[in-house]
């Protein structure tokens, strides 16, 4: 259902982009809203996320690859804080939806979530948008769970 809603919200964007012959209007329209939308899933709050045991090893593997490419510069796998907090224990401290939203919907989190705001005060660097999709973020959760000793 969520996917369908997502697709529907993107629909006008696609229609707009294939304007072709219709592009010419007497008063050309300037639509800034398309600019504000990220091309991936940012801005879509993830409200529910089901975990399953045992861990999905394919997701763990994907999560590790994403970690190496986009996360490891700021987050250690230990409890050591670098730019951001170390990942040890993160799945115990935070709900999975909280983590996913910090990854994919950081603007909303920093605007609304007291815990996220507290983190910013400590780290002083905004958690960046690393262009990670909700599906990819789900894989990161799996990898974090493994890092926290789950099987």
């Amino acid at each position, binding site marked *: 259902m969520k996917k369908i809603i997502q697709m529907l919200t993107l629909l006008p*964007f696609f229609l*707009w*982009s294939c304007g072709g012959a219709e*592009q*010419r209007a007497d008063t*050309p*329209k*300037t*639509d*800034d809203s*398309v*600019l504000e939308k*990220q*091309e991936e899933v940012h801005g879509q709050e993830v409200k529910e996320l089901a975990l399953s045991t045992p861990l999905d090893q394919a997701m763990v593997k994907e999560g590790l690859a994403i970690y*190496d*490419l*986009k996360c*490891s*510069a*700021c987050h250690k796998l230990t409890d*050591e*804080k*670098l*730019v951001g907090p170390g990942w040890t224990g993160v799945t115990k401290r935070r709900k999975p939806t909280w983590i996913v939203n910090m990854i994919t919907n950081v603007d909303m989190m920093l605007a609304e979530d007291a815990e996220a705001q507290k983190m910013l005060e400590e780290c*002083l*660097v*905004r958690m*960046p*948008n*690393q*262009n*990670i999709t909700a599906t990819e973020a789900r894989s990161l959760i799996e990898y974090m769970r493994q890092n926290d000793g789950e099987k």
Partner: protein
Amino acid sequence: MKMKYLKIAASALAIIGMNACKPSADKTSSGSFLAGDAAEKVYVKPGTHDEFYNIVSGGFNGQLSVVGLPSGRTLKIIPVFSQFAESGWGYSEETKPMLNTSHGFVPWDDSHHVALSTTKSEHDGRWAFINGNNTPRIARVSLSTFRTEEIIEIPNSGGNHSSPFITANTEYAVAGTRFSVPPDNNADVPISSFKQNFKGYISFVSIDKATGRMGIKFQLKTPGVSFDLARAGKGKSADWFFFSTYNTEQANTLLEVNASQKDKDFILAVNWKKAEEYLAKGKGKKEAAKYAHNVYSEETHSATSTILNEVMTLDPKECPDMLYFMPCPKSPHGCDVDPTGQFIVGSGKLAAVIPVFSFDKMLKAIANKTYDGNFDGIPVLKYDAVLHGEVKKPGLGPLHTEFDGQGNAITSFFVSSELVKWNIAKLEVIDRVPTFYSVGHLSIPGGPTAKPYGKYVVAYNKITKDRYLPTGPELAQSAQLYDISGEKMKLLLDFPTVGEPHYAESIPASLIEKNTKKIFKLEENKHPYVAKGEKETKVVRKGNEVHIYMTAIRSHFSPDNIEGIKLGDVVYFHLTNLEQDWDVPHGFAVRGALNAEILVMPGETSTLKWIPTKVGVTPMYCTDFCSALHQEMQGYIRVSPAGSKVPLSWGTGKNPVSDAEKKVAKR
């Protein structure tokens, strides 16, 4: 005080030239030309966007400016034929090949004319093309990344002025040579043998529909004249291209006098479809010529330069019915085709009229062979047979014409310093408005397309004088924005420009902004020296070359401590920006770098070459304010004497704060 004003007025008059049809140059410009609601019309509320992108050539700076209209705010400078220390363009190892030519590295040019890509003669928002006038080149700039993606050099050309105007569906950009030249492969001839040996080469540069990739399809070896400007036909005339010429006297010295002898020069009409037919029939001849073709890849974030060694030529003598001359008074500059494709407007710099040619009449004259002799074997059509009519007494020194889409044309007049609006069908002047001072090019949004948007015209003035706060002998070139939505043109805004704009085009923001590139995806980065994550950072020595695979993210480099570099080494910092968020570039600078800093966009890899000159510890840091801890984004590189035994080592070190905290916790 009064005396001073008199002097300024006098100098302004001297520039503009004294003459009866000159509008009064009101210094404050507050006369009836200024719209009463000017401020409201150009005010773009904070946080909102301009309505048009104005893509402006930079003239002698070899760059493009991106300006918002109607505000006149400069949004970006795009280096094209130039090095740009601000971003490292032309200094970084990846971009240096873009400025390669058959002469070697030429990091400068004189860029004149902008051509935005079109489909069916309407803007499609994909690319901007611009010519390099001095070392003949054409560049293609992406309107998604606002970066130069490709540059092709033009052989057999001496000054690529009549360029890069494009055909209706962006099939070709053209390159007409301003200086006729002997062929590159047989060029050691006496200058006085101009008439025998010199040719006016016109190159047709094909543009791939999908990728925009350019290649010289063919060159026409036309008689030795100077090609000035050009426009493609549209609609019914879309198979044709029109080029203005001067120096049909074929003078090779003191052109100021010797090239102004004849009452009429020519507009050359080229049937390019016919040229394609001759090419298909095997009439083309490959000739030796050396030229560079440089392409930037968004995947590898790197450019390659290839030197090509031959070019296809077509000799008009073997290709009848392909070229025709239309006589045009006198040393025509602009050669502009109206939105319907029916009318071709010649602007004789030294003429007292604006001749308007009819495409239908031209075809008729060709069919009936209504010739007035020939010029070096190319038929000259009779002036009266091809003329739609002349605009009488329009002003002095007409240069360029654009169209408002309402059946009117607006022509710029350098000598009388004004814009003149006239009706194309009736050939009647409707309105005139002064420019401050001495307008060169002008630009109406969509003005050269089949469907102009009208609304505004921008005058790009050649003389600035007293328009802005003075800044010493050199002044910012002045542009002026006019409202043309009503019958009377109204001045709205003066705005300074960068470099010396020649031509510019404007395109609705909605056609560009939706395609803007925000980041380069790390997953798609195919740079040979990319570090995809800090895990891949390393330092590799190959003889005296040291390659540092480095990453940047808010707010540290990895590695940020490097030792084992020796005097005599050539160090390459290959910096990958690991950020994937819009508008988070990182910069990189190292003390004593003899080239530049680099700015690296999210997901991009860029390389700064550094040859250490001193033994010691050299700082390096991020030059782009990236976060609250930007000032901490710094590191050291140790340079030891040649022959030193210091081993190569690197790291981002343990976090000392965290270590200290742990010690405290243990207690």
